């Protein structure tokens, strides 16, 4: 049975998405995308230069093979994010948008208020909205109510590679959500991705852990396998964890 990821009206075989902001070259990025078999790749609208296709990321990405998801990175408030999404649509990129509103350049923490405000406007205008958020279960619910097609909570501060630091809050988000939950930002190792998938996340998104690795392509492959393993583990139903060992019972010899 195919275990497909469904977001809005599209289905994807891969549950592993890749961000493109940190790769050293298009060749390495290409190699990583191939190794990962990722189908959804995010691209910052601010990086796209339609006047100079020779240096534009869009010329290396093959739209027949992958789905380009524009993001609003760099937007500091709802208005800038909304206009960036409209610009992406006007460029012919997509009417899907990964909504990012990060007014703090130090930590790039998403602004919940402005994200919700922008999401309401963009949903109204017919966009498929995938908002990047802090691990906030109430905000996730409000965004779902507003009509977003997924929520993308961060596992740990972006670029930190610290893994599932927000596990408790993310578990709440997953339990309550009727839309896909994509864990975005902070996943530092394949085991972090596996853990997110075991917890029931629908997909994960990674950039730094791959692009900053000594061998990005191998790391992309490792993440792919980890995402698959975590997903299978989740689907199979994990055995319950116990606080004490139960290798064998010390009272088996008693007559029951």
């Amino acid at each position, binding site marked *: 049975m195919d275990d497909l990821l469904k977001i809005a009206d599209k289905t994807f075989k891969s549950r592993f998405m890749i961000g493109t902001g*940190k790769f050293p070259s298009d060749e390495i990025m290409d190699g990583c995308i191939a190794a990962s078999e990722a189908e959804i790749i995010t691209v910052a609208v601010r990086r*796209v230069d339609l006047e100079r296709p020779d240096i534009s990321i869009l010329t290396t990405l093959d739209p027949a093979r992958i789905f380009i998801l524009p993001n609003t990175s760099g937007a500091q408030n709802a208005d800038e994010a909304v206009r960036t999404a409209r610009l992406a649509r006007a460029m012919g990129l997509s009417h899907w948008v990964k909504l990012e509103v990060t007014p703090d350049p*130090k930590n790039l923490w998403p602004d919940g208020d402005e994200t919700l405000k922008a999401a309401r406007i963009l949903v109204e205008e017919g966009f498929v909205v995938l908002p990047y958020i802090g691990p906030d279960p109430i905000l996730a619910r409000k965004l779902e109510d507003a009509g977003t097609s997924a929520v993308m909570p961060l596992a740990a501060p972006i670029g930190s590679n610290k893994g599932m630091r927000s596990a408790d809050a993310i578990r709440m988000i997953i339990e309550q959500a009727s839309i896909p939950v994509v864990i975005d930002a902070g996943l530092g190792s394949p085991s972090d991705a596996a853990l997110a998938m075991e917890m029931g996340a629908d997909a994960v998104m990674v950039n730094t852990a791959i692009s900053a690795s000594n061998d990005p392509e191998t790391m992309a492959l490792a993440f792919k396998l980890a995402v698959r393993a975590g997903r299978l583990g989740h689907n199979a139903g994990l055995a319950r964890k116990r606080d004490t060992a139960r290798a064998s019972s010390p009272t088996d010899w008693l007559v029951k």
Partner: protein
Amino acid sequence: MMFHEEYARIDAERIREGVASLDEQKTEYVISEETLAYDDFLHLLSPAASASLDAMALRSRAMTQKHFGRNIGMYIPLYVSNECANECIYCGFNRKNDIRRKTLAEDEIDAELESIRKLGFDSILILTGEFPAKAGTEYIARCVTLARRHFSQVSLEIYPMDTDGYRQLVDAGATGLSIYQETYDRETYARVHRSGRKTNFEWRLDAPDRAAEAGFRKIGIGALLGLHDWRIDAAYVGAHAAYLMKKHWRTEVSISFPRMRGSSSHFTPACIVTDRELVQMIFAFRLYTRSAAITLSTREAPSFRDNMVDLGVTNMSAGSKTNPGGYETFSENESDGQFEISDDRSVDEVAKAIQRKGYHPVFKDWTEIFGGVRA
């Protein structure tokens, strides 16, 4: 509160002691910390830490990759005027210097902008001296408007203004502002700035605050290395950066390290900062500020710049001219530049050198949609 109040509270003795540390054992511990205290930063500027340059380099590289990726933001300067009413004894534009002065007319600015755009840039830095009669707020705002037709990022390196003046420039579309204190040592400052409005130390000290309040998205600070003990000046730049990053939390702070390389006919620096010292300073700033952008201009030599691509730097200029109209309008015999360019390679050569280091020269990193900071 403005920075001059914070400046008055800084304990100069604590800085002198911190940057004089000889405790080499402490460096390893400081480098391994996730967040550094100000005293840790002072230690990294000290002679003791200079023994651990490799360890600092590796940490600086890792932290920079984590926050910025393997990217170098590319920009280019455009000097629109070299006229100046100040008497800064180290500067080529010193009003007492007998140089060929130009303030570009509108058609000349347009020609320069088009010429630069063809080089592939989307981020431009517009510079002037301090001569409001010819290149005042209205003139600079007009330059910004013209530049925004070709470039989505337009930064300024101009004389200090009041908040309203800065706001006019933000409204015209300016995204960034650089203003260097030159030196944070009041006595040295008074000695090297002999006359003109630049003699006002506090007015300049608070300029980044005013610029942030006016809504500039990016603010650059720094000291001109060579005027005063570099360790002391770097310590103050660090304090200034930390203050700005905390107070103006929506504003991106960047730091530059312009250094005087030797004597000119007009001026002999108090000290020459060596390559090793400059590198140590850059590492110390990366480890302490973590997310501050770090800019390295064509004042530095090609080999130095190439070696620093993967060690903490995030922005570089290329193909620069420092004489007004130098790209299209005037030759170097018709208008004089501010300082000697050490890296005179073409934009393409610099971009290729960055790629050889496994980094991506980023020419476009902004959209015309992004405006000033609004609370």
